[in-house]
């Protein structure tokens, strides 16, 4: 009944979105810890800003008021709902 959510790495550059859920189990413990430290959490606003030049990896993502670089594989674990402009 719920339609499948987009993941953070599907978002087009400059699309604002809100984190719906994070698949913590898909991440190893250290990576999960880092993501939490950066402020990744349900309800937080994110926006992909830039892509790495080779293979569009990693991603630079705005999370809260911070910009962080994460790999595509990690971004895949973050489910988001785009915010209508």
């Amino acid at each position, binding site marked *: 009944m719920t339609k499948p959510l987009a993941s953070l790495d599907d978002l087009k550059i400059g699309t604002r979105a809100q984190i719906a859920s994070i698949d913590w189990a898909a991440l190893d413990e250290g990576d999960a810890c*880092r993501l939490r*430290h950066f402020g990744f*959490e349900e309800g937080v606003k994110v926006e992909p800003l*830039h892509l790495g030049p080779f293979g569009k*990896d*990693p991603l630079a993502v705005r999370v*809260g*008021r911070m*910009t962080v670089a994460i790999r595509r594989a990690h971004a895949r674990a973050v489910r988001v709902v785009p915010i209508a402009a």
Partner: protein
Amino acid sequence: MKSAPLIAVVGNPNAGKSALFNSLTGARQKVGNYPGVTVERKGGKMLLPDGAPAELVDLPGAYSLDPTSPDEAVTRDVLLGKQVGERLPDALLIVVDASNLDNHLHFALQLIALGLPTIVALNMIDLARRDGLELDPARLAVDLGVPVIETVAVRKRGVDEIRAALATLVTAPRVLRPGPGPSHDGFTLQRRAREIALRAIIREAPARRFNHSLDSILLQPLIGPVILAVILFVMFQAVFTGSAIPADAIAAAVTAFGQWLAPLLPAGLIRSLLVDGIISGVGAVLVFLPQILILFLFILLLESTGYMVRAAFLMDRLMSRAGLSGRAFIPLLSSFACAVPGIMATRTIEDPKDRLTTILVAPLMTCSARLPVYALIIAAFIPRRDVLPGIGLQGLVLFGLYVVGVVGALLAALVLRRTVVKGGGGGFMMELPKYQWPRLADIAIGLWQRCVIFLKRAGTIILTTTVILWALSSYPLARANEKQSEVSIAGHIASGIEVVVAPIGFNHDISLALLPAMAAREVAVAAIATVYAIDKPDDARNAQTLAQQMRSRWSLATALAFLAWFVFAPQCISTIAVTRRETNGWKWPLFMVSYLFVLAYLAAGLTYWLAVAAGLG
């Protein structure tokens, strides 16, 4: 008498902690190490407004008290009073980035809960305003329960207020604040941090316009890598061309000093030791101080502007192909200056296998100690002319040597990742800090520290090995029509080494330089200079430069093989020692030394054989 109070400066990475630390302590700093771990301890003294001294320690930046790297573990252990070699701080100075409150307050809340006397520096308040953010520090102070002071560390704004507040903090009778409250899990704390941040924000405009537009250029998929390549190229050209005048001046001063001193001393042992041994040996290395400082200047600038992390971002994918992460870019780029801090900087890499691989290939980055060797050979054998306007052949060859080192490192990483360091493969997660104008004083302090380290090396390791080499090369004395460099003790040792290295084109002089160069690579230059100085009859001294003498004794093929050798050879005891410390044992340093020597031998051999085949022998 009780000792000066210890104040820990603590906060998230990129909160401007070090700039505030520099503003408070000025040049009264001491960089050391925590015992047992290779985490740097930056300490300093400051005077409180009443003239009483206080000791400051700049703890490694962390996101929380749950460490994800050895650096963060030190921060936690110091704050809990569990770090060997550090007493429990008497007070905390928490530094938070005003424009990143929700994130930084998370750690700040954890720190405040420790119950130590605390003040919070609301730093980079000017950048927050530039971002359209207006804050209410009074409200923040009420919510946090500790004093909050606005600062702009890079402009020294608020620094006096911090000093005054610290004085009250350490002199006031210790009021026990409620200790660690009910322990919060990460999420609850994060939520509280966000609530407090929200309440402290009076007005907010969309964040970081300036950084975003700059990143749109510097991280642009096509332009970004080109800009990075240009920056690196300019850096290496500057190292070569910008240093010419000061280097010549130092060389002239060294020669003049030798010429002035020689007639004042009776001919014989002492004169030979001072003039041939120490002045020509140490002098030959001192000449390279300008180049090393220019290199460090670039690295410090790239780091302090925030560009270095962007470079890591651009390089991550390529490095991941070689089995490394973009995070390895910073240690590897630092290794261009020196592999020792480079290897120490690998502590920020969380994945143990990524880290080990980075350590093993770090010595392939052309460190500044190789510069004297490269510079000498290039100056002697590569003509000084422009290939294109403004692009000299010599600079181009130097750039090529750096490229060979980088490519070698990536290939080595690739092979290592598939053989001895299999498995794992961590991620790449980094904060992209705000762009900032570098502060002159911070750069100056950094350069000064490098300068002191280099001069200390010149005064200790290089001086000692030069003197030993002088003694070994001076005795026994050569009779007429014998060459001093051949009959001396050093000459005999070199003859032994020559048997092994002759196939790759190394002559007797080089064999002689290889052994002392184990102490430090740049000693190779000092060694060659000393040997030639001893070899030459007095009247011809100064008639020929070192480069001219080398041209008369070495073939171009030999010179090129020597360059190739130095790209790979693990000729540095400090690097081996730091690798042992970082990997907790002899296994990996021994492995590193062996594979690098094999590579060096093969590279020098191939270069020599190809050059001879091309008719350059």
